[in-house]
């Protein structure tokens, strides 16, 4: 069977869940190979983790010449790997990357280098390479397929349930040469975001969000999130007011989330906000205005003041959990 390359998403050597989702999807298309671009010292641990989800091979590319620069070196490294794999007489069925702003840019450059078609933000990929995307603020679903070269597909988190299966996890170190031309946008400083101790917004099964209606006090929103084991999100109005950093923003110009449950509190439901949450499986809202457009989307809505409803709900859930 032909190989499918899956770019690993890992932080400090810890593999993130979307990687396992992509490996699960890769098995539908061919034989999954994980690609780890990172510190050589972390490779063994990453290999151990990904082989549990079916990675037959683990290509390791040392990032010493890559990590200090934006996008271009990563695209070069992946292009060289793809050429080595297909040059060795093997078929390359697809290249899958977790959808993030950076990976989409990497994929875009890679598509031009490999003269291959690109599909971004897929929410599903079938065995024949047909992808599903959600467009126009989630109002349409689109099925598409790459028709040229090696399909390059970026896949959103939560697009598949990770399935464990033993792979050989054979580690192969790949030497790449990064051109000087690719090292022209230099990362001069990096400020890691403080850990919230909560699940990552785009990966979480439950997201509890707050908007302008919180009046800037997210205590009740956060308490509810914690009792549900949820991530916390925010509308742009809440972000623009400085109540939460931009990394919390859900919507067209923030994160797109598609959790099992989305709880919108004090959020009116503007189209740009919907664009980021409309595909959630179950939607619940608390808003004091019964005319708020968010209620058009909900499976269950409470017309009321979030400052009283949320604490009461948190208490009720705590009580029921015993």
């Amino acid at each position, binding site marked *: 069977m032909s190989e499918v390359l899956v770019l690993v998403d890992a932080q400090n050597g810890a593999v993130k869940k979307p990687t396992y989702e992509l490996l699960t999807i890769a098995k539908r298309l061919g034989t999954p190979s994980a690609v780890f671009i990172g510190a050589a010292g972390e490779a063994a641990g990453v290999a151990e983790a990904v082989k549990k989800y079916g990675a037959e091979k683990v290509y390791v590319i040392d990032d010493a010449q890559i990590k200090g620069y*934006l996008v271009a070196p990563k695209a070069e490294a992946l292009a060289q790997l793809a050429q080595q794999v297909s040059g060795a007489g093997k078929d390359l069925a697809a290249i899958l990357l977790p959808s993030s702003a950076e990976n989409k840019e990497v994929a875009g450059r890679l598509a031009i280098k490999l*003269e291959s*078609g690109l599909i971004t933000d897929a929410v599903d990929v079938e065995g024949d390479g047909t992808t599903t995307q959600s467009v*126009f603020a989630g*109002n349409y679903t689109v099925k598409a397929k790459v028709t040229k070269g090696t399909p390059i597909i970026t896949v959103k988190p939560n697009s598949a349930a990770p399935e464990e299966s033993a792979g050989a996890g054979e580690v192969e170190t790949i030497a790449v040469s990064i051109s000087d031309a690719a090292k*022209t*946008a230099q990362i001069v400083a990096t400020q890691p975001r403080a850990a919230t101790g909560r699940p990552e917004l785009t990966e979480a099964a439950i997201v509890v969000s707050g908007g302008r209606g919180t009046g800037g006090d997210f205590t009740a929103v956060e308490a509810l999130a914690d009792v549900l084991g949820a991530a916390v999100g925010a509308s742009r109005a809440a972000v623009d007011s400085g109540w939460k950093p931009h990394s919390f923003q859900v919507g067209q110009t923030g994160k797109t989330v598609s959790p099992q449950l989305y709880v919108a509190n004090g959020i009116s439901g503007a189209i740009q906000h919907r664009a980021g949450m409309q595909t959630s499986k179950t939607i*619940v809202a608390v808003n004091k205005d019964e005319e708020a457009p968010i209620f058009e989307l909900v*499976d269950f809505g*409470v017309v009321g003041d979030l400052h009283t409803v949320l604490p009461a709900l948190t208490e009720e859930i705590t009580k029921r959990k015993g």
Partner: protein
Amino acid sequence: MNIVVLVKYVPDATADRRFEADNTVDRVDVDGLLSELDEYAVEQALQIKEKRAEEEIEVTALTVGPEKAADAVRKALQMGADKGVHVIDDAIAGSDAIATSLVLAKAIEKLGAEKPVDLVVGGLASTDAGLSVVPAMLAERLGLPQVTLASVVETQGNQVRIKRDTDVATEVVGGTMPLVLSVTDQSGEARYPSFKGIMAAKKKPLETWSLADLGVDASQVGLAASWSVVEETAARPPRTAGEIVKDEDGSGAKALADFLASKKFI
């Protein structure tokens, strides 16, 4: 200094956006406008020009799109861009990001042949089916550094420094002009055209180029040359109306807890 701003004409997000029979975005019958996210790109280009008032800086707004796309360029001229270029050709209809980036790259090369281009500025994404990839693809095609998705932009001499938010960190990225820059909606409110700006725009040059002017063959662009194909589009079924309850003396929280329990969330 020569700045090129990429502006795209998109269907209005608040109107009823739809697909045509061939599964391409309907860009003709639906009301359109300059993509809101590209207004931020125009704004940053104008701010660079204003901050460096002692230099001679020309800002050119460039679009690739159908007849009405000229409106997007006009809006950029009203905001303060100096001249406009509209690439229009029947063959371009249905182009994907890969083909669009090719046409944009050739247009920038043509502009550069007249006077070197120092800075190409794009937006965060097209507000229609945007991928947020065109600026990166342009950098790849033009062989220029890419300094993209900036929330803060600073320039000094030929140096550009930006702030960029990733999923896990905030980065400061630097590059030397010529380069490709893109900016997010965090980069600062875009200005409204003033009455004076609207009047002045009428006299500003707006050139129209065809593929032949760019030396691009029609077979390289359009739906047929696309490296991927849309097989099916479907309107998402409307969500079935849910239950809405009024909170009275704590009844709302209990009802919501019951609902969450029925769905096994608690």
